[in-house]
């Protein structure tokens, strides 16, 4: 779950990281008032996307009138399909040097890692490729309380010393502590700027909290004003997606949700994890047009599987649904068969017509096949591969 810049800076401020003065403005009038108070400002679109500068989401203003005009423009610009929620008006400062600091997990080392560079403000992957001596990677333990010397090592490793070393050590150490404390998967400050007066400030920040940890940090999220159903995906959720998330959250037994809407006509109920990725690829390879991606797994209850099926069947664009999974181990064929048949019927459809194909072999399949026989649903067993089953469903749509 990505934080807006102003939220990330709120976290930094709480942990004593020095920042420029700033005000969040939702309207041109509020931006003008901020400029009257702060003097010349930089106005930054508050949007959950990178590439703000290129898209025209960052502008400078010397007067309140200029700030109002710039804010009106910025609020109109969607970046990568996302609308800004406001503009951050921040006092304009003169920067003499930019640094980069980020903390994330390295899945290979299985440890958190600090990435630090004295070439901030530009694409860090480019620095890593072209100027590796200007970038340090410093792993640390997530099990021990964070110690400042680790941040110092990260900063010193690119050759920084003197006052900058000490100021940066404090900032990077705070960033690492924030990262650990709030279950973040990314905590980045880019750039950290040294000003003409020698002060060192965090100028922009990007933070991601792990979705699984949201519940743990409910109190903080409430303080920051983040709603429970604000999923902060790379694009805003559709009503179909929101409804699926709600039914998944309403019943803790297994997963039935995590739905992403597409513009096709074939509704998909396609297992969880890897099986769902494989089958989504298979449907597209066969020339099919999915109406959705979703997940069912971890043995959802019959009522939960039924609720998801009903929701998908009720979408006007969904002509048929395909119920397909890899050979299942713990999710049971009979339980899913009960759920999808019940969901179809509750949505007012005949399962034998609405379900293009049912391909879930594995645990309790004889029991599941008995249920499918009773309701006349077309099913195949494991002798028909996932790719073949997907192709059959697509062929039925074209018939």
């Amino acid at each position, binding site marked *: 779950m990505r934080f807006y810049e102003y939220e990330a800076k709120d976290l930094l401020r709480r942990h004593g990281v020095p920042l420029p003065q700033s005000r969040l403005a939702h309207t041109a009038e509020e931006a003008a008032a901020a400029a009257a108070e702060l003097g010349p400002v930089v106005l930054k679109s508050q949007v959950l996307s990178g590439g703000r500068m290129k898209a025209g989401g960052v502008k400078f203003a010397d007067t309140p009138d200029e700030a109002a005009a710039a804010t009106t423009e910025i609020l109109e610009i969607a970046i990568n399909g996302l609308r800004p929620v406001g503009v951050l008006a921040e006092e304009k400062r003169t920067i003499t040097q930019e640094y980069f600091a980020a903390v994330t997990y390295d899945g290979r080392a299985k440890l958190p890692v600090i990435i630090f560079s004295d070439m901030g403000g530009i694409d860090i992957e480019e620095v890593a490729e072209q100027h590796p001596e200007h970038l340090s990677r410093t792993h640390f333990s997530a099990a021990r309380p964070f110690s400042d010397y680790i941040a110092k090592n990260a900063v010193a490793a690119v050759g920084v010393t003197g006052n900058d070393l000490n100021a940066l050590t404090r900032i990077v150490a705070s960033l690492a502590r924030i990262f650990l404390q709030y279950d973040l998967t990314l905590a980045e400050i880019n750039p950290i700027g040294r000003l003409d007066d020698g002060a060192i400030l965090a100028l922009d920040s990007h933070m991601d909290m792990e979705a699984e940890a949201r519940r743990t940090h409910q109190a903080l999220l409430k303080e920051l004003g983040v709603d429970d159903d604000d999923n902060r995906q790379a694009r805003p959720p559709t009503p179909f997606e929101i409804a699926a998330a709600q039914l998944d959250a309403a019943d803790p037994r297994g997963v039935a949700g995590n739905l992403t809407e597409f513009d096709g006509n074939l509704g998909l109920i396609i297992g969880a994890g890897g099986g769902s990725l494989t089958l989504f690829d298979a449907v597209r390879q066969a020339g099919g047009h999915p109406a959705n991606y979703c997940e069912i797994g971890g043995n959802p209850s*019959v009522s939960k599987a039924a609720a998801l099926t009903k929701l998908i069947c009720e979408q006007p664009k969904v002509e048929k649904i395909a119920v397909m999974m890899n050979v299942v181990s713990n999710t*049971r064929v009979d*339980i899913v068969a*009960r759920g999808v048949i019940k969901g179809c019927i509750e949505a007012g459809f005949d399962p034998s017509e609405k379900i293009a194909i049912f391909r879930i072999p594995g645990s*309790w399949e004889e029991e599941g096949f008995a249920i499918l026989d009773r309701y006349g649903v077309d099913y195949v067993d494991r002798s028909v591969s996932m790719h073949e089953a997907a192709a059959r469903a697509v062929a039925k749509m074209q018939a």
Partner: protein
Amino acid sequence: MAMFIRVDIDEAVQRDPALCRQLVEVCPVDIFALEESGRVTTVEPNLDECTLCALCWEAAPEGQVNVVRLYRE
């Protein structure tokens, strides 16, 4: 209305309060509940959740708790 599962409880079960309580405890999907009188009853919305785990009919003397699969009838 349950579409797939029916559970029949023999009257003999009701004469064994310990067994009634045990049925409530063993069922992983809460199909059984105790009435105030101490009689055990089934919870209609949970019937279709039955996983056929056998814990209920194994807990009772043979034939006293029967889980009926309506799709096999």
